[in-house]
């Protein structure tokens, strides 16, 4: 007679536990989905910056950099060179100094150079790669100088040539160069959200 209520009690406890676990899994799953969606939305903002001329002009797939908002080929027969710094007698630093030269319209920043070919964000016809392709390149540690999420956030926050994009100086005609579509603060915030979501990448090619 004493055993029945005990069995019943165990059943109730187990059932409640199962419901709780199920609810918890559902909540966790919902939270993960929301986190993923927030991460992907943040990535869209990051991508909008990476493919803006101030960034993508030096992330080419070809052996030359680009310049200008129309992303035309760099003038004066400038080429990539073995380390992305031009070649002897025609180095990037033959013109690009430690900071912008506004009186002559030549942009400058520390260690001016092209991104490596592993970080190309364009195809050979100078068309920007898709959001998913750029995302895969940026998150592939065999291609991105072994940067994890935290390192990517630091790179976007502190790297001198990244910061230059928001201080690009004046063109030879004296007008200001176009800035990326969002502020550096917004760019860093978006990168942080994306990294905290696990650097999700959009599906597709």
């Amino acid at each position, binding site marked *: 007679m004493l055993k029945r209520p005990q069995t019943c009690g165990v059943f109730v406890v187990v059932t409640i536990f199962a419901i709780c676990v199920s609810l918890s899994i559902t909540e966790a799953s919902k939270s993960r989905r929301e986190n993923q969606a927030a991460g992907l939305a943040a990535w869209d903002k990051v991508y909008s910056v990476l493919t803006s001329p101030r960034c993508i002009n030096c992330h080419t797939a070809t052996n030359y950099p680009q310049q200008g908002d129309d992303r035309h080929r760099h003038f004066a027969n400038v080429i990539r060179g073995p380390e992305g710094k031009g070649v002897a007698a025609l180095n990037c630093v033959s013109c690009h100094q*430690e900071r912008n030269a506004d*009186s002559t319209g030549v942009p400058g920043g520390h260690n001016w150079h092209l991104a490596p070919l592993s970080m190309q964000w364009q195809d050979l016809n100078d068309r920007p790669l898709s959001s998913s392709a750029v995302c895969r390149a940026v998150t592939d540690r065999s291609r991105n100088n072994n940067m994890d999420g935290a390192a990517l956030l630091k790179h976007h926050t502190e790297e001198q040539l990244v910061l230059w994009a928001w201080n690009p100086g004046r063109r030879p005609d004296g007008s200001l160069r176009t800035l990326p579509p969002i502020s550096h603060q917004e760019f860093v915030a978006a990168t942080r959200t994306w990294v905290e979501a696990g650097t999700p990448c959009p599906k597709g090619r």
Partner: protein
Amino acid sequence: MATFHLNINGSEKTVDVDPSTPLLWVLREELKLTGTKYGCGISACGACTVHVAGIATRSCVVPVDLIGDRPIVTIEAIGKDPVGRAVQNAWIEKDVVQCGYCQSGQIMSAVALLKDTKKPTDKNIEESMGGNLCRCATYVRIREAIKRASQQLG
């Protein structure tokens, strides 16, 4: 205006100029080192090439306040350098020059190339000298002279 102490061809020179003045005009107008030429003014032709800390540099687009304490060598002193001497000798031997306007820049770039690459290939020469224009089209002789200088230097 500001005062700048520049190390040019091994000597310290002091100039009072606007900080935004391109190095080319400091050399030509303030220091009367007129071997360095004004060509395009936008770093597209290479006529204004000098060496800044050993790097071939387009002096027409580099403001003097970005030079700092880096030593500058111009065409007037490149002959004191063994590679520079060899290049100048090869230029004479191959009779490279026609009108001559671009040649100081050509020689400064050629010296920078040979200091980096002792035995340059045709491709090396085309890539490194590709930013130095010559309206007399002396390119074939420039290539021969660079190879001759390379031979002389061993």
